[in-house]
């Protein structure tokens, strides 16, 4: 038995792969649910009910999906150009804390229409800065960015932790380590009244389409794809490798920083060190699940959000640990990686 590269990848196969991967993951997770002593189909039904069963749960799922779309796009854009940005989590936090600082210290008092776009830009800029450092190290000294972006996540989180226990600490928070809140003028408008769903979801949709168009239609998109697929070939064809990667890093870091910004401005209102339940890392899973396709990222983010929100509901009603959501999402990633392999290779004997 051996593996052979497929000559043609059919569209149907590419679309079927993530669907099959998700089904595979659900089937495998079902084994665990059964071991936990619960009826499997009932548990999955509860997940769906938990995610979509009421107005509240449906809006919560979409609220949860909003930052995931952005961090997923951040990873997808970078990975396309073989820039291994594992630092989405750190960029998320730096974006969030910058927004809190700017809103409470610098921009307070500006009207919403001015302040909100400015703050979103501040959040994106913070994410960009945090990704440009590892990129500079890679371009100048060939330092592996997998290591540097990953480790900077911890640096960023500790930095945030220092600020919210120090200069940015909210004096009204009864001593809890949390940042000063963003001004009321800076809170993102809601998409639906009496819910937490904010316009961040719309921003995610728009940016997913925008990234898709940039990648498929523009000179920059073509050059960044070339740089990712074959750096030597790209250089020979005159693609400015460094400059292209800097642009890619700006998009990727900016998207992750933006995710932090909308989460602060749309949901929590202030920064704590548990602002993100791993949005940066889940973004990587989302991107892989979408096979790095920006439009697919939206669907993959929704799936991930459904699993996380739905598993909470299932856990409450059936007494199964919520970790089942983590397990299912992780299994879907593994299944997807296996599935992607088989879209590229076939078994031959």
């Amino acid at each position, binding site marked *: 038995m051996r593996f052979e590269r497929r000559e043609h990848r059919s569209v149907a196969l590419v679309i079927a792969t993530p669907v099959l991967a998700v089904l595979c993951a659900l089937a495998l997770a079902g084994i665990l649910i059964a071991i936990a002593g619960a009826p499997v189909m009932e548990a999955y039904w509860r997940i769906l009910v938990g995610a979509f069963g009421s107005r509240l749960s449906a809006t919560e799922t979409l609220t949860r999906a909003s930052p995931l779309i952005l961090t997923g796009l951040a990873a997808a854009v970078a990975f396309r150009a073989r820039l291994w940005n594992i630092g989405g989590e750190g960029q998320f936090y730096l974006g969030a804390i910058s927004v809190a600082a700017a809103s409470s210290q610098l921009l307070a008092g500006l009207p919403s229409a001015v302040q909100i776009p400015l703050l979103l830009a501040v959040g994106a800029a913070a994410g960009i800065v945090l990704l440009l450092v590892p990129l500079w190290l890679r371009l100048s000294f060939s330092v592996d960015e997998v290591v540097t972006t990953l480790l900077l996540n911890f640096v960023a989180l500790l930095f945030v932790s220092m600020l919210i226990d120090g200069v940015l600490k909210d004096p009204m928070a009864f001593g809890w380590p949390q940042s000063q809140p963003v001004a009321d003028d800076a809170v993102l408008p809601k998409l639906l009244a009496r819910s937490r769903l904010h316009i961040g979801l719309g921003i995610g949709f728009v940016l997913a389409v925008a990234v898709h168009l940039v990648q498929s*239609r523009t000179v920059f998109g073509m050059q960044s794809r070339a740089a990712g*697929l074959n750096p030597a070939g790209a250089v*020979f064809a005159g693609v400015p490798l460094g400059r292209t990667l800097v642009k890619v890093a700006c998009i990727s870091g900016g998207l992750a920083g933006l995710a932090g910004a909308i989460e602060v401005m749309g949901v929590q209102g202030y920064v704590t060190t548990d602002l993100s339940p791993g949005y940066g890392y889940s973004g990587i899973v989302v991107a892989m699940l979408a096979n790095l396709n920006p439009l697919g990222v939206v669907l993959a983010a929704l799936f991930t959000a459904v699993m996380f929100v739905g598993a909470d509901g299932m856990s409450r009603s059936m007494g199964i640990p919520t970790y089942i959501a983590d397990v299912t999402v992780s299994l879907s990633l593994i299944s997807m990686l296996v599935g992607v392999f088989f879209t590229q290779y076939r078994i031959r004997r």
Partner: protein
Amino acid sequence: MINAALDICGISKLFGNNLANDDISLSLGKGEIVALLGENGAGKTTLMNILFGHYVPDSGKVLIEGRELPPGKPRAAIRAGIGMVHQHFSLAPNLTVLENVMAGTESLWRLRSGTDAARQKLQGICSRFGLTVDPHARLGDLSVGEQQRVEILKALYNDARILVLDEPTAVLTNLESERLFSTLKYMAREGLSLIFISHKLDEVMAAADRIVVLRGGRKVAERLASKTNKAELAELMVGRKVARPVREPSTPREVVLEVAGVSVIIDGVERLKSIDFTLRAGEVLGIIGVSGNGQTTLAHLLSGTVSRDKGVVVLFGEPIGDLSVEGAVLAGIGRVPEDRNNEGAIGEMAIWENAILERLPRFSRHGLVDRSAGQAFARMIIDAFDVRGGKPTTRTRLLSGGNMQKLILGRNLIERPRILIAAQPARGLDEGAVAAVHERLLQARREGTAVLLISEDLDEVMALADRIQAIVNGRLSPPVSAQEADATKLGLMMAGEWNEEHEISDAL
């Protein structure tokens, strides 16, 4: 046939609608070297995969020393004494030679590894076959030729009596190839039987006792090396007469490129040492040399991907600074890189994308790629340069080597460049494709393009070039005209035998 080491009897194998092997029989005597000659897709690899048990044949059988080999069982093939030396080595660069050779020979459950015994056995094999390698050297530190020797040793360590070498010279320099051939002959005298897969005529003539020619999955001929010649083999292999074109006389015109005293230092190593040459419109200047002597740097310098540290470059009469890729393309310099797969094309991108990637400014407006113009451009190249096997939207990786080279030549020549830098343009191509590439280069020359042909193939340079310079260790010899050049003289030049004071000729 009592003393045949290997008999392949009537093997057929069908893949889909494609008959990859059609009733092929051949036998290999003990101590004999048989070459399997054929173009890409002739069925050589399929046949060897059947021999190794990777594929099950639809009909036919394999006999080793008269005993039938069970089909589809690689382990049985190895136990029967068949060893394979792959074109791409299956070795670990971070292990030592000894560890590489031993890998896979010991059970995972054994607590101690029999290193001493293994080293003794390896040294025994080394001295018996005259293969010298330090068993404790790290594989990654060895040259490609030495690594190949390790790959051979590994097969011999597994007690191979029949050795199959798949395109063994594809990665070797000429000198290393010659050394390999003498090793193979020595091994044959020691009683090993060898199958040598190749599509290069020179090599099979030099190395083999007997030559089996495959074409389109069928055995078309079998010849003793002593009773055939290259022309006959070429015709058998391709199925029709192929004649590589030869340049007709012409008068070169104005000088388009002058390079004087140019040096290039990369990572502290002086790759080009004060080289001089001039290039005229309507001529081919051949730069001959064993690869690794600075050719790559020279090609990169003129392609705009490497900048010089010293010297003057005069392009179309004007001294210029460092060339950028974009500058080179805009100035009308066509560029054919020596590494087709790595530099020449991005395999996972479509043909049309590869066609326009180096001239994106022309195929875009306001930063948006003009797809339809790009695809039309690709279609033009496909039609004009007879690129087979793909539409503009096909991924480039799916093209054969020859067709990929036609695409690369096409995207340069369709623009009628004033200069063409062609680095090893026919390397690794089969006979038919070589002739096509040569014809294109000569056509460009007729149309007034100045062609710089960088090559290590003597025949190629002598057939195409008007003037020839040798490159040795970063230095460039003075030019000799093609009329005065013969193999001996060029051989001396490639060995660095020229006198700086008294030029070899006054061709200029």
